[in-house]
C-alpha cells in the first residue's frame, strides 16, 4: 500500500501532511508542479488535499485521467475545484454558514447516506459535520456516502466514470485540521486516513461494503 500526497505547501498542508499526527499515512509527497515527473502507477492512492489551487493541478488532468484508467485511486477533498481537473465531476458551490451552530438545537443537515459502508465503522455523523461548501451531482452508479440537508452528495466514491476510483468530497478537513480550528475535522481524518490505508488498496473492492469484508 503506497499513498502519494500532492503537497501545495501552505501552512495548513504542512501541518496536516507532515505533522506527527498524520505524516505516517503518506509514503511520498509531490509538489503539483512536479506531478509529471512521477510514475503514478507506483501508488495505490493519489491524495489531493483541500484548497489545492486548481490552476496548479489543471495541467496534470490528462496524467490523472490516465492513472485512473489504469485502475488508480484519487482522493480529492474540498475547496480544490476538483471539477476543473478530474473527469465527470459536477459541482455546485454554496455560501458557507460558519455560524449555524450558534442557534440552539440547530442541525446543519449533514447525513451519512450509506451507514453500512466501512468508512462509517470509523466515523460518526458528528465527525463529518462542520460546515458546507457545496454539493455534487454524482454519476449514476457512484456510491454516495454523505449528503447535505437537501440530500445532495457531499462525499462519494465514483467507480464508474473511469476504470479506477475517485473519492470526492466538498468537506475540507486538511485545511481546518492544519489550522488547528475545528475539532470535527481532526476526528474526520482520524477515521478517514486509516480507512484509506486499509480499504483503498489498488484493484481491491474492499471499500465497497462491510458485508464484503
Amino acid at each position, binding site marked *: 500500500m503506497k499513498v502519494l500526497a500532492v503537497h501545495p505547501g501552505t501552512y495548513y498542508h504542512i501541518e496536516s501532511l507532515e505533522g506527527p499526527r498524520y505524516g505516517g499515512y503518506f509514503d511520498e509527497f509531490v509538489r503539483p508542479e512536479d506531478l509529471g515527473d512521477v510514475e503514478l502507477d507506483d501508488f495505490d492512492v493519489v491524495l489531493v488535499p483541500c484548497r489545492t489551487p486548481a490552476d496548479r493541478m489543471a495541467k496534470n488532468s490528462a496524467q490523472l485521467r490516465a492513472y485512473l484508467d489504469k485502475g488508480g485511486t484519487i482522493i480529492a477533498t474540498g475547496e480544490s475545484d476538483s471539477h476543473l481537473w478530474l473527469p465527470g465531476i459536477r459541482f455546485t458551490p454554496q455560501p458557507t454558514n460558519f455560524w449555524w451552530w450558534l442557534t440552539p438545537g440547530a442541525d446543519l443537515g449533514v447525513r451519512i447516506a450509506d451507514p453500512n459502508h466501512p468508512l462509517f465503522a470509523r466515523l460518526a455523523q458528528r465527525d463529518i459535520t462542520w460546515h458546507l461548501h457545496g454539493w455534487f451531482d454524482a454519476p449514476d452508479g457512484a456510491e454516495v456516502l454523505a449528503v447535505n440537508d437537501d440530500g445532495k452528495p457531499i462525499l462519494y466514491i465514483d467507480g464508474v466514470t473511469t476504470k479506477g476510483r475517485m473519492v470526492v468530497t466538498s468537506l475540507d478537513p486538511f485545511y481546518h485540521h492544519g489550522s*488547528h480550528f475545528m475539532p470535527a475535522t481532526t476526528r474526520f481524518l482520524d477515521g478517514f486516513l486509516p480507512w484509506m490505508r486499509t480499504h483503498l488498496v489498488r484493484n481491491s473492492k474492499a471499500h465497497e461494503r462491510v458485508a464484503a469484508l
Partner: protein
Amino acid sequence: MSVLFVHSHYGEPGRGWQALADEGRLTIVRERELSPEHFATTQGIVTTTHLDQIGFMGWKDEIAALFTRGGSWFFNGHTLKPFVDGLSTYRPLGSPKRADLRLTRLFEHPIYQGIPQGDLEENKGVAGFYGRGHNPMPAGGTAVNGISAALLPIDWEWRLPGGGRMFSHAGNDLGGMGADAGHSGVLTRRIAAWAAGEI
C-alpha cells in the same frame, strides 16, 4: 517602488486588495509568477494565509535582500518555514476555551490606530477567527497584540538587525478582520500603507 501583494489562492484576490491595485497603490502578482525582479523593485510585500511556504523558501535570498535595503514584509498565517533567520515555528493554543481567545492590545501600532482590539475579537459573535496561537516573536520584536491570559504575541513587528521590518499576524488574513465593526477595509489599506513604508 510599489507594494507587491502575493496572490496565492485560486480565484480572485480580495476586493480590498483589488481596489488598491486599481488605484495603483500596489501590484498583485500570482505567487507562481513571482520573479527576482518583483522582489528587487518592490518596497514591501504582503502575503496571505494561502502562501505556498515551501515554494516561498525559494525566495529566501530575495527576501533577505529586500530587508537589507529597508523593505517590509507583512506576513499573515502560521510560520512553518524559516524564511528569515530568527523566525520560529507557530505554536497553537492547546484546546482553547473562549477566555483563551481574549485579545489584548500591547502596543499602539499605526495599523490599528483607532481600532479597539475588542472589535476584532469576534466574528458574528464567534471568537477564534482572528487567530488561535502565535508565531514566536524574534528577539528585538515588538508585541502589538497578545492572545490569552499569557498575552502570547499573536501580532508583532520586528525591525531586523540588518535592516527592514516584518509584521507577523498569526491568524486568518488580518485585512478580513473586523468587518462587523466596519474595520476590514481600513485594515487592508493600513497594511498596504505599512508595507509601502508610509506608516
